[in-house]
């Protein structure tokens, strides 16, 4: 694809283990994400989904292969990257307003400008009136909204999301998924959304990438040709949804089984 937003070419990432060995998280992984595309990455536990995001964001460097963002090899953290973490990563000693304003402040925007933009984003994620609260005073879903606003205020061209809603209850989760879609629709950002939940992946994405059990590599890619705008709560009732789900699940099932067997053995050995 010409002008891909993100390109991973034969990327391998190894980590040194404390025992002195090496652990290969992903091996020979090749994938692309187009500009403005919503790409979901699914795979069994420990298949290197989070590592993939860490490589794109520049938090980790590839052991082999090329990682390109906007056509440029990744060295350090590329410009225009947003990252929504799996666990809470909002700053507990900052109020909601200060948390959301952090990005612009780090980029040199003056305090009052940053706060103005932050107020705008806080109301866009539905948290108006909570500007002066500290994170401990918010629910898990509200903290997630703060995290989203914190990332989106920087106008990222690429938004990386690492199982962002996995800690939320099912209702809050559906709400947040819908909000994510409407917020994303107003931007032109490419999204890489990592999840272990296949339903979530299909409901949100333009394309689903299935990774193999670790070391992760691409097992298959599936376009999701469901119309937008979508309502996440209802889209799963469409027959087209079930057909896509079945096709992907046939691929994913084997990998999940492999991963499960491995964990059992590891548990038995340990």
């Amino acid at each position, binding site marked *: 694809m010409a002008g891909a937003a993100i390109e991973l070419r034969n990327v391998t990432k190894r980590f040194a283990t404390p025992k002195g060995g090496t652990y290969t998280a992903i091996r020979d992984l090749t994938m692309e994400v187009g500009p403005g595309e919503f790409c979901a990455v699914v795979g069994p536990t420990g298949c290197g989904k989070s590592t993939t995001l860490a490589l794109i964001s520049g*938090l980790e460097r590839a052991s082999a292969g090329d990682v390109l963002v906007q056509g440029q090899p990744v060295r350090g953290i590329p410009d225009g990257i947003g990252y929504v973490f799996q666990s809470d990563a909002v700053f507990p000693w900052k109020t909601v307003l200060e948390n959301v304003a952090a990005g612009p402040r780090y980029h040199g925007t003056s305090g009052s400008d940053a706060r103005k933009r932050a107020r705008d984003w806080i109301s866009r994620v539905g948290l108006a009136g909570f500007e002066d609260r500290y994170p401990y005073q918010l629910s898990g879903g509200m903290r997630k909204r703060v995290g989203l606003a*914190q990332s989106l205020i920087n106008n990222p061209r690429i938004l990386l999301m690492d199982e962002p809603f996995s800690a939320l209850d099912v209702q809050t989760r559906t709400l947040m998924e819908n*909000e994510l879609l409407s917020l994303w629709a107003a931007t032109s950002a490419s999204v890489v959304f990592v999840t272990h939940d296949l339903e979530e992946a299909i409901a949100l994405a333009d394309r689903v990438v299935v990774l193999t059990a670790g070391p992760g590599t691409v097992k298959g890619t599936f376009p999701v040709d469901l119309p937008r705008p979508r309502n996440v709560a209802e889209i799963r009732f469409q027959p087209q949804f079930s057909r896509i789900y079945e096709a992907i699940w046939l691929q994913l099932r084997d990998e999940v089984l492999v991963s499960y067997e491995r964990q059992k053995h590891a548990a038995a050995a340990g």
Partner: protein
Amino acid sequence: MSVRNMPPPPVSVDAGSRRPPPSSVGSQSLTSVGAQDGASLSELTAKRTRAVRRRRLTVYGLRLLFAILWIGSWQLTTSMKWVDPFFFGQPSGIVVRLQQWFTQGTDLGSIWLQMGVTMEETIGGFLVGAILGVVFGVLLGRIELAADVASPFIKAANSIPRVVLGSLFAIMFGLGLKSKIATAAVLVFFVVFYNAFQGVREVDRNLIANARILGANNRRLTTEIIVPSAMSWILASLHISFGLALVGAVVGELFGATAGVGELIYSSGHLFDVDGVFAGMFLLAVMALVAEGVITALENRLIRWRPRQISGETPI
């Protein structure tokens, strides 16, 4: 591949999903419960307030009882000459001595001057030690190479019984304020340093990653993420270290001084004035308690972002 239908401004999908439909069962039952509980809620609050007050009264009452038992038995045993008040002192004698000091002054001059001198030494040593401790703790916590290089030296320095440095400082800095500040600062430094260092090492990796992605440079990372995160560790160490600073100042006075509560205690000791020694200790305890209150107030200001204690009681 990036085909996407741009929806009109988020209305249809979003407006419905942000709030639950008004007809939902949940909201109905919620309002009815709210109305029903309206009266009993204030009752519950009052009940809780009473319980909290009762508990506080119990705590204060038991404290008073303990003090009466302790001081009373001391007074009794010494008055009855079961224990010799010449060697063990006597509460009434201590009160007399304090009264004397505050009305007629001490052998060394005004009591306020003595307390002022010791307080000056303590606060000076506390500030110097705490600031150096935080600065070095954060620096070594951030720069791994520096930490590896400095590690054996710090361990060696920490293993010295630092109180004996007081005699060294008396030679180096003379018998004035500086030698006491140095002694107190050395005691404070290591406690604060280790806490700051550990606090920096314990900062959540996720928070650091998030700040870096959001565009924080190294300086911002240190001032806005690392230091606030380590602050609860640092503040915990400040509680202990004020007491240590007081120890340092008093020990410093031991190695030679012309004024100060410590000096007052030693000179009383030399004169076999046991009541005077106890009176001096009492003054030191009062100073430590006042400082403790100030530090707690500072702590509550600095870490407002932390959830409060559930009961609302001041921690003891």
